[in-house]
């Protein structure tokens, strides 16, 4: 994968674009942060349920921008959203999806990064009460996690936004990697491979019908 910081930045902006709308619209932002607080409170109320085995799991040293919680949220989201095992699609072990997400996240502007962080916390914790799962998103089994995504994709604006942001981070990070293209038979760049001749600039059109030039007039 030939990924540059600039390329990562572009992908990050696109993936986080829906969140940018929330950030700019105060009433939604208030609702988002309020909901996040509520979810955390609710999670606190069910503190025993809210604990997760992932809390004790390590984060690779190479991860620089994702928090512990965010890393495990995206790790779980990647497993749930991209169940490629047993399919012809490129295995997750060959595509550094989480590294791409980490790089993209590190390139978000600070204010947007903060809101994305709050949104991710909401998405994870709200599973305790939303749908009465009684546990965080990271602890849902595959079917319940997919159902959680599906429900949020049909929910209110904040839910649809967070559903879109998480999916776009995961899917863009996977599908922009050329290693993922052969199984779906997308050809990628072809001009060099096909030996397509370079034509250069187009020839000047017939200018005999030009409007009279300054030089000709004077």
């Amino acid at each position, binding site marked *: 994968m*030939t990924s540059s910081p*600039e*390329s990562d*930045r*572009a*992908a990050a*902006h*696109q993936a986080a*674009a829906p969140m*940018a*709308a929330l950030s*700019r619209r105060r009433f939604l932002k208030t609702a988002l942060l309020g909901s996040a607080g509520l979810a955390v409170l609710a999670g606190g109320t069910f503190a025993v349920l809210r604990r997760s085995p992932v809390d004790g799991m390590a984060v690779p040293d190479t991860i620089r921008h994702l928090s512990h919680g965010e890393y495990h949220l995206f790790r779980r989201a990647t497993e*749930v*959203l*991209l*169940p*490629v095992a047993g*399919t012809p*699609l490129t295995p997750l072990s060959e595509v550094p999806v989480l590294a791409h997400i980490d790089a993209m996240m590190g390139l978000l502007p600070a204010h947007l990064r903060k809101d994305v962080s709050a949104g991710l916390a909401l998405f994870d914790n709200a599973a305790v009460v939303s749908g009465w799962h009684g546990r965080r998103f990271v602890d849902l089994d*595959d079917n319940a*996690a*997919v159902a959680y*995504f599906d429900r949020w*994709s*049909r929910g209110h*604006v904040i839910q*649809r*936004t967070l559903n*879109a942001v998480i*999916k*776009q981070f995961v*899917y*863009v990070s996977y*599908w*922009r990697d050329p290693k993922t*293209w052969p199984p*779906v*038979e*997308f*050809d*990628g*760049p*072809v*001009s060099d491979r*096909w030996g*397509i001749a*370079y*034509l*250069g*600039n*187009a020839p*000047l*059109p017939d*200018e005999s019908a*030009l*409007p*009279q*030039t*300054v030089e*000709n007039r004077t």
Partner: protein
Amino acid sequence: MRAINIPRDGLPVTTARDMARDDSISGRFTLKTEVVVIGSGAGGSMVAWELARAGRQVLVVEAGPYHPSSAFTEHLGDTMTEIYREQAAQLNSTADVLFPEGACVGGSTVIGACVMQQPPDSVFRRWSEELGLKNLAPQVIKPLFDEVGREQYVHLNEAHEINTTAHKVIQGCERMGFSWKPVSRNVRQCALTGHCLAGCPSDRKMSALVTHLPWAVGHGARVMADTEVTRVLIRNGRAYGVEAVVRDPRTRQKVADLRIDAEVVVAAGGAIQTPLLLQRSEIPDASGQLGKNLAVQPFVQVLARFREELHGFRGALVGVEIDEFIETDGYMFFSALAEPEQLMIQGNQGAGPDHINFMKSYKHLAGLNAFAIDEGRGEVKWKGSHTDGRKVISWNPSRAEFEKLKHGASLASRVFFAAGAEEVYLPSFQRLSAPSVFDLDARLDEITYGVRGMYSLRINSFSSHGTCRMGVDRYHAVTNARGEVYDVKGLFVADASLLPEPMASAPHWTVQTLAKQVAQGIHARGQELFLKG
């Protein structure tokens, strides 16, 4: 007779790096020219060529970088990073409508799909007879269209340029009784790579990079990249130049402040950037219409899965159009299927097995983009000072526009079902698909308007226009019929901002034609506008 030397390939462009290396250039410098053209896309490049070949001294300034064709990788992600405005994340104020736009030397002509469409004569008759714009009467404007078409190999797609996605659209249209035709494109010997949106590395696309800009340079025009005009200088109702900032495209660090003294200023940055520039420049705006009347030609993409393998992403990106509804309902439909990364951005995806099944069927997919004429109620506004303000693009669909787009999605879906689709994916922020035409209406009913149509239909826009509309009444329009801004002599607009009303036609050809007319009008008024006549 003058010898005209057209570069074999590439362009002599002065970039921020050149200026940073030049010891004779300090942090602030001034240039003089007869004509400064702001923007190097469809309109700006045409004006530059027309006036340069008429013997005028022309300087083209482009805010974006110079990205020669040899640097194109056919990797859309790379291209979006390098030469799309805001790295392809230019959005409306609610961030649910995407406005992709080129931000490089050549502008959007570099990243466009080569679609060239002429509005029907009825549109020009209305603009001429009802709006009083006699310069747009069919008998006046159509010969200019023809001239522009001849300049850049505009032709109807031939059989080999119509790919499998397009053939599915043809099949559907034939069964539905809808009129269709091959798309007109400005391309020579298309290599059928399908990578139009990532730039054409073999220079077959007739973008400004390989046509009007090198031709203008052959006639002596100069081109500067990385140079963002911050405002037009106006004194006593006369434009006399521009102020600009040169920035390193990588670091965004300022390299220099620049002032360009010019006798004629032509704004050609497109329907979003030009009104912002004129607002920053605080031009008199007696009409109050500057930045208003934004028409976006919103479109939604319908995807369909067929039993057979299509590889619909191969071949010319846009093959055919459905022209059944242009004059009656203002719909345009173009066949096209995006590459995987773009699909992830453009459409909402299911979760888990649903997404895997969708992508496993990628080679079975076909795509049809449904464009609808909108009401032109949007607005582009610059907020803050001219140096550190920000733009706001306000456009969300009205309920009527929303229903129109939804009906467009319905028509596109029916075309695909008529062609034998096994499933149609609907353009919604929810994950919605219909397994048969009998389920279609019920699924479409699930897409509701909600709050201002936000995050409901998945809408994009390639074709903003109308934000500096031309007209014969200075209290109703921003520019006169010659494209000159009312009350500012010597300041012209030559881009899609000029269009007087929302239009159901891809605007590229119209913009070039209007720009040619504006340039020829400037040339005809040489005695009045230029010191040397």
